[in-house]
């Protein structure tokens, strides 16, 4: 009895080791041969909430809504894949760790295409022109980036907004937060006096009339969908889908739904 049990145990351990060794090799493929984390599914990671790009929505199929969510839903549809969206932290996404750890195939998280990020990620074509902006309370004396000397400015960890602030708001006290949720709370609580981040997100905070956007900054930056380094087939597929959406008017329809009122 005893003997056979330990033999079985030993065999089980060996077998599982052997399985584990080769298990990582066979990952799923899409119809075009692009690598996928899960069969027939486009798994997308996003740092939620970041309205209007991504937000929670219990009533939708994926559990999320927003500009990015609509874009990747359309991409998935055109690639004939199901869509799963996962919430992750932004610095794991922009550093490429989430993709390398095979948590997802694609990152759709209002992520600006930068040379730094290209070292660790591949990008689709840009799908949104991003502007930076400065958000302050309506009664604030801060009118421009020049007024930020000695002022606490909230920025988000690992974002281009943080880099822009560090380069252009000399003398400002840059306070880093993990995400927009904590940042906006801190602004409301008076822990910081201004937020410098992507325009649409700041605009979203102006809707209740307590905060205003005092400046916007053109940075010639675009958001891209990030894909694991080396998965060039998926980049090609996604670019193809984006191009189709531009030419048949789907992109404009989605865009107007979120941004047409801002001008």
């Amino acid at each position: 009895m005893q003997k056979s049990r330990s033999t079985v145990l030993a065999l089980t351990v060996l077998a599982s080791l052997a399985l584990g060794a080769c298990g990582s090799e066979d990952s799923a493929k899409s119809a075009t041969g692009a690598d996928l984390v899960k069969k027939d599914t486009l798994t997308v990671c996003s740092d939620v909430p970041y309205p209007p790009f991504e937000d929670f929505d219990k009533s939708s199929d994926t559990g999320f809504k927003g500009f990015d969510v609509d874009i990747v839903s359309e991409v998935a549809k055109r690639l004939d894949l199901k869509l799963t969206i996962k919430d992750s932290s932004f610095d794991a996404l922009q550093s490429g760790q989430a993709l390398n750890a095979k948590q997802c195939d694609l990152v759709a998280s209002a992520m600006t295409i930068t040379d730094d990020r290209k070292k660790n990620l591949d990008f689709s074509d840009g799908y949104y022109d991003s502007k930076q902006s400065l958000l302050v309370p309506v009664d604030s004396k801060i009118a421009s980036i020049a007024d930020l000397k000695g002022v606490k400015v909230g920025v988000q960890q690992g974002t281009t907004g943080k880099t822009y602030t560090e380069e252009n708001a000399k003398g400002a006290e840059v306070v880093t937060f993990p995400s927009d949720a904590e940042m906006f709370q801190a602004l409301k609580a008076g822990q910081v006096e201004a937020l410098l981040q992507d325009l649409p997100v700041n605009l979203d905070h102006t809707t209740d009339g307590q905060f205003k956007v005092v400046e916007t900054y053109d940075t010639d930056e675009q958001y891209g969908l990030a894909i694991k380094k080396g998965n060039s087939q998926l980049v090609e597929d996604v670019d193809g889908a984006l191009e189709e959406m531009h030419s048949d008017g789907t992109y404009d329809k989605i865009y107007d739904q979120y941004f047409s009122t801002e001008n």
Partner: protein
Amino acid sequence: MTRRQRALLVQVSLYVILVVAAVALVLVADWPTIRENFWNKDGVSWADGNWGDLITIGLVNTVKYTAIAFAGGLALGLLLALMRLSPVAPYRWLATAYIEFFRGLPALVVMIFMSTGLPIAFGWSPPGGTIGAGLIGLIMVAGAYMAETLRAGIQAVPKGQSEAARSLGMRPGATTVKVVLPQAFRIVIPPLTNEFVLLIKDTALLFLLGAAADQRELTSVARDFLSSGPSTGTATSLIQAALLYLIITLPLTQLVAWLERRQRKAVR
């Protein structure tokens, strides 16, 4: 097969499994990739790697924040413990309510409440910005834990000690301060050191509240290196921070073990 042979066989096969697993790990693992991700050489170089900020900003602030939270928690804990042992019932009720409430909450919730909830609701911010508010939150939670530790310590001092002091004519207050508390503190040194180690790790929660560049503690600095700096995109900075945490916590936990052994001996 005799019982002894069987036992031997089991033992041998357990060793074989261990060896096979180790060999399999060495053969299967992609060592260059693992090293690149966990110990990226650009990040760990002494000249311009991560160590500078990790040590001069992260480690220094972590130690500083821990010391503040511990000192504050100890003062609050002592006050609460004395209230809990007070002959005046309302003090006992207050202290008990406080302890039960704050021991039942995650430290992070209290910290977020102090840094953003309180100012939004009452228009009053704790001093010291986000870090100050976070530390007050930590102190409030640590105080509740330490109060219970201190109370147990005070109650563990034999009753005869205070009776003897009182019969020598000492006043109740002096008895507590000069006779009971010194002995109680000796009893609670090991659990308090444990609490210190827990606080070192809890300072990492300050990350969520937001911190200026020179206010960041160890975890925040390490997280920053995930997205910028020489080891971007690798987990190197996390490993480095982990090592620095262990450098402080391991000697302390060893110290607790040694103190506990010594105390057992003293009791015997």
